[in-house]
């Protein structure tokens, strides 16, 4: 077959391929960019719009509190932040691990919506707690609850998005969701600071308003989002899944190319089997998903926290000092502006390509931060690039993972990818802290940039096989 031949030559490509209905045989579309078109016109799913609004409301809620928390803790309560930094590290680890677990629970239960409600609900309860908390441990506990709630809701929610979206416009749908999400993330801090501007010690008011948005978010989720079942969705997509698994065979290994068609059929059957205790093995045996996890982990290991970039920027730029609290908002605004364009690009050009190219944008931001430039221009450029990076990687990763995971492990696959990225980024920040400590900010940035350049090239190769598979969508 054509694809097997291409693979044996080592010429696997990222071209969009058209699915011949029902047969499971795929034929490449002519390469000319102008002829690339979607099979169906784009239609925004109301479910995704609802999920986006739920995320927006929840982000207004969480980011309004997050933005004022340093002021509240140190300026108002007189608690030192050093301990919160340490506890937050622990929380982030817990939140990362919870993602894959929640995805798995969602797949086993077969009701992603219920797990999502649990996650959003836990964060909402943490908001209630803020109204009564005042001590160190109570606040630390509430922050943990909020973080874990965020970890729980992400994978099942992204599974709901996947089930509601037109497959060929999947990344665009994720882009719309992430845009709405980030509108909330940009509005939250502004709302909180507006309240504090009117009422200088009005932290309680910020907590009350934050709780109000959290409650509306949860109610909107319960009322507007249908209880989509992966089982029925998988049934509808069984043909697609079989085709993908079959198409994936050659790309896994040279041996796989010669695998008898009976084995492929067996695998395809397994992929559509209802969720049982098949969590560990079948997930990572999916060669496309395995490749994605490796590539995402590799790139994640070279993605240092934004905080470091902001510190480098404010170190040399008076503008950044004054506006330091707003650098984060600036990144969010860039993220929301680029979320849809990057999603559309991913659907047309290849999600794997855009995912890798997003890290190239991050690389340019590192170089800008490391270069001895001063002034407003490089700072703003760096924020825009960070926004592009998130727009090209966050929703696109979920889109990639959901197309590569078998239908019965949809949320587990998404959660696995997010856990890998979150854990590897945590490791990256810890390692970068050591590097920063050893050689200084600029040199550390240059070293990470060089390593990231190599990783971008390597992951582009790793993802070739996987992206060919997801391009089949």
């Amino acid at each position, binding site marked *: 077959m054509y694809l097997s031949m291409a693979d044996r030559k080592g010429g696997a490509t990222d071209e969009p391929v058209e699915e011949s209905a029902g047969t499971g045989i795929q034929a490449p579309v002519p390469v000319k960019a102008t002829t690339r078109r979607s099979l169906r016109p784009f239609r925004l799913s109301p479910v995704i719009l609802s999920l986006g609004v739920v995320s927006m409301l929840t982000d207004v809620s969480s980011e309004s509190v997050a933005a004022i928390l340093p002021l509240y803790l140190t300026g108002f309560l007189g608690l030192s932040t050093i301990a919160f930094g340490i506890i937050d590290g622990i929380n982030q680890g817990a939140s990362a691990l919870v993602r894959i677990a929640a995805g798995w629970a969602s797949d086993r239960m077969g009701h992603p919506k219920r797990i999502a409600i649990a996650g959003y609900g836990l964060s909402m309860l943490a908001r209630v707690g803020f109204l009564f908390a005042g001590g160190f441990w109570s606040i630390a506990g509430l922050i943990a609850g909020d973080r874990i709630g965020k970890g729980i809701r992400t994978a099942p929610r992204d599974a709901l998005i996947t089930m509601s979206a037109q497959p060929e416009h999947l990344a665009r749908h994720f882009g719309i969701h992430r845009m709405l999400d980030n509108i909330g993330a940009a509005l939250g801090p502004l709302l909180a600071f507006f309240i504090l501007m009117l009422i200088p010690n009005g932290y309680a008011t910020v907590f009350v308003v934050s709780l109000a948005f959290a409650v509306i978010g949860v109610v*909107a989720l319960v009322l507007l989002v249908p209880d989509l079942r992966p089982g029925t969705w998988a049934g509808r997509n069984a043909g697609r899944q079989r085709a993908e698994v079959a198409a994936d065979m050659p790309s896994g290994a040279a041996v796989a190319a010669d695998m008898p068609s009976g084995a492929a059929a067996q695998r395809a059957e397994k992929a559509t089997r209802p969720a049982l205790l098949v969590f560990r093995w079948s997930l990572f045996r999916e060669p496309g998903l395995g490749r994605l996890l490796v590539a995402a982990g590799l790139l994640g290991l070279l993605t240092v926290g934004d905080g470091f970039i902001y510190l480098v920027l404010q170190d040399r730029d008076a503008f950044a000092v004054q506006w330091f609290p707003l650098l984060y908002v600036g990144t969010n605004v860039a993220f929301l502006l680029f979320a849809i364009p990057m999603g559309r690009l991913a659907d047309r050009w290849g999600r794997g390509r855009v995912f890798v190219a997003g890290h190239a944008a991050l690389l340019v931001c590192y170089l800008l931060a490391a270069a001895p430039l001063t002034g407003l221009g490089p700072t703003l450029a760096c924020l825009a690039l960070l926004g592009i990076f998130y727009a090209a990687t966050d929703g696109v990763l979920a889109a990639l993972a959901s197309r590569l995971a078998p239908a019965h492990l949809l949320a587990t696959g998404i959660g696995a990818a997010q856990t890998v990225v979150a854990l590897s980024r945590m490791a990256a920040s810890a390692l970068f802290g050591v590097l920063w400590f050893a050689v200084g900010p600029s040199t550390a940035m240059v070293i990470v940039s060089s390593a990231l350049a190599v990783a971008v090239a390597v992951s582009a190769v790793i993802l070739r096989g996987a992206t060919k598979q997801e391009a089949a969508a």
Partner: protein
Amino acid sequence: MSPELSTPVTARTRWIILLVITGVVLAGAGVYAVSAFQRFQQGQLAGSSVKVASGDTALPVEPFVLFRNTAAGQGYGKAATVPLDDVQGARSVSGVACDRVYGNHQSMVCLRTNRGLVTSFEAAVYNADYQQGSSEAVPGVPSRARIDPTGTMMSSTVFVTGHSYAGSGFSTETVIRPLAGGDSPGNLEKFTFIVNGETVTATDRNMWGVTFVPGDPDSFYATTSSSGRLWLVRGSISARTLTAVHDGVECPSISPDGTRIGFKKNTGTQVAPHWKIAVLDLGSGMETVLAETASVDDQVEWLDNDFLLYGLPRADQPGDSDIWKIPAVQDSAPELFIEHAWSPSVVH
């Protein structure tokens, strides 16, 4: 779409329920916000909960204690003074709002939060008539401020806060600059850091809590941390060096006679710190831990060569605190010094 949503009546009912709940919840939050705003305005107009002397527009000429007034009502959060010989008496409250304040007879340093849609932080210098002089932006929540005994240099420490619960972790920025503005020794992170005679090239260092050495305008002490360790460092402004001289000393404050350093000593863990007040004898290197049982997160101030002052937040009233006094010797008992106050500086 699920079957129940495709039924228009059900979908409409759901929307109506959502809109009603949204309306109720937003109205509730709105009522709370409006009443909080009214309470704040009334609180501002209400008389202060403490005795206030009639409006002073300048720093006193007689010896005094400058502090941040945290008594509810009018003048909350403003810089205030009491005469040193009657600290429990009526306080004179200025119109200058500060989170952290330090002063001498000629000037006052005020670190503050400028609340707005873009909340920023600044270190401003005022003269004895409370007229603002130089001012510079600082990158986070005010923590410590000091003026040197000659009245030419000031230092400020802030918690660098971008966003989120902790951002990239705990980070402070400590700067020394002339009160009059102009050429500045700048950020202590740019100073050469020497431990046991060797230069530490690590740049991920945090500095906090500068105290200027009396009688030596070039020298100061501060805390430097690096990879989980803490040192008391002696700094030289002209040589731009920080030399580690002792372990585990946070927020040093040198006694007026220059022989001892009062500081906070962490007797808990890194995650759950408990700071005891301690005194280090610079001559002998002996540490004395004082008897205060509460955890003190402050840079202590010497009342004279025998007593230390420090702030403790009130557990039952967030945003309010008291200044306490303790003899700088072992087994001594703390006593209340100034109620509803924070950030003391003693001006003889």
